[in-house]
C-alpha cells in the first residue's frame, strides 16, 4: 500500500518493483515506484494529454 502523491488516495500494488509504472485508481495519474522499503511513488513524467478543446 502507498499513497498517491497527487491525490493522497491509498493505492494497493501487487508485487511492486522499482521503476514500475502504476496508475492511481482515483485520479488516474501515472506513478513511478521509486523505492520499495518504504514504498514511495512519484508522479511519472507523461505528456499532458490533449483535451481536444
Amino acid at each position, binding site marked *: 500500500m502507498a499513497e498517491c502523491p*497527487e*491525490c*493522497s*488516495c491509498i493505492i494497493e500494488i501487487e508485487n511492486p518493483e522499482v521503476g514500475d509504472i502504476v*496508475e492511481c485508481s*482515483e*485520479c*488516474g*495519474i*501515472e506513478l513511478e515506484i521509486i523505492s520499495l522499503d518504504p514504498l514511495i511513488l512519484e508522479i511519472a513524467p507523461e505528456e499532458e*494529454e490533449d483535451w481536444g478543446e
Partner: protein
Amino acid sequence: MKVSIIGASGYTGGELLRLLVNHPEVTLDRITSESNAGSFVHMIHPNLRGFNIKFSSIKESFDSDLVFFCLPHGVSMDYLREFYDTGVKIIDLGADLRLKDKDVYKSWYGLDHKCPELLEKAVYGIPEIHREEIKKTKLVANPGCIATSMIMALYPLRHLNIDKERIVIDSKIGSSASGDSFSASSHHPERSRAIRCYSPIYHRHIAEVEQETGFKVTMAPHAIEMVRGIFTTIYLFLNQPYDEKEIRGIYRDFSENNKFFRVVKQKKGIYRHPDPKILTGSNFCEVGFELDRENRRMIVFSAIDNLMKGAAGAAVQNMNIMYGLEEDTGLKYIGYHPI
C-alpha cells in the same frame, strides 16, 4: 413488503415502478392514476411492456405497508393526512413536506399548507444527511432533484471557512425534470437544442438548500439538450486558502460513508469531471471540484440522474433504510457507456 404508488402515470411514478418491479423485497399493491385507471401501465410507460400491470384509482381499497406519493405539489396535501392516519409508511416525492416551515412553504409555493402538523413529523429524504432519522420515521419528504444535486455537493463542505452568503450556482437540467405535461415551449422544434434559463433566482429548490445546509445561494437552472440528468456548477469564495488534498479528503471521507456518493476528479480519460450522461438510470451522485488557490475560489461540480438520485432512486433508497435493508437493495444500477 407491500407498496403502492399514488400518481404513477408521471415520469417519477413510472421510474419508481421500473425500480419496484425488480426489487427483491417488494410486492405491488395499488398503482394509481385517476385519468388512466383500468388501463395498462405500459400504454403510458412503454418500457414496462410484459409486466401487465394496470392502473387503479386512489378510491379503491389499499393493503399496503408503504405508499409512495407522486402527485403534484398542493395535490399531495389533500391525501397525506388521510393515509398517514391509517398508520401506513409514506414517502412523498412531491414538494408538500420538504419545507419544515409552513410560512416558508407559502412564500415559495403560494399555498396555505393543509396538514402543517405533518411538517415536523416528515424527515427530509437525503440519507447522506438524515440516515438515522429515516430509520425511525414513518414519513419521508423526498427532496427536489436540483436541490439534491446542490445539497450533496455543499453539505460535506459545511465546516469549511467559506463565504456562506455568496454562493453562485448555475445548473443544467434535462427536460424530464419538468414532468410529462407538454406546452408550447416543450414542443420539439422549440425545445430541441435550446439553452433556456427558467425561473432564475426564485427556483423553489433553493429553499431546500438553505434549510439543509444553512448556505444562502443564488441559482439559475438552464434547460439544455438533455432528457435525463442534472449538472450543477457551484462557484464558492473561500475565506482562507485550502489545498486540493484537503478538499479531496473531505469528499473522499463522505464517499466512504455513502455508497451512492462518488468523487470524480481525474487527470486522464474523457470523463475527468462528473457527467450525468454516464449516470443515466443509476442512483449515483458524482461530485468533483477545481481549486483556484491564489484567488481563494473553488468550483464544485455535481451530477445526478434527476429521475433517480433526484427522485425515484432516492425514494427506494429511503424505503430500504426504513425497512433496515441494505441501502442499495434493488438499486445496483450501473450507468451505460456509451449512451
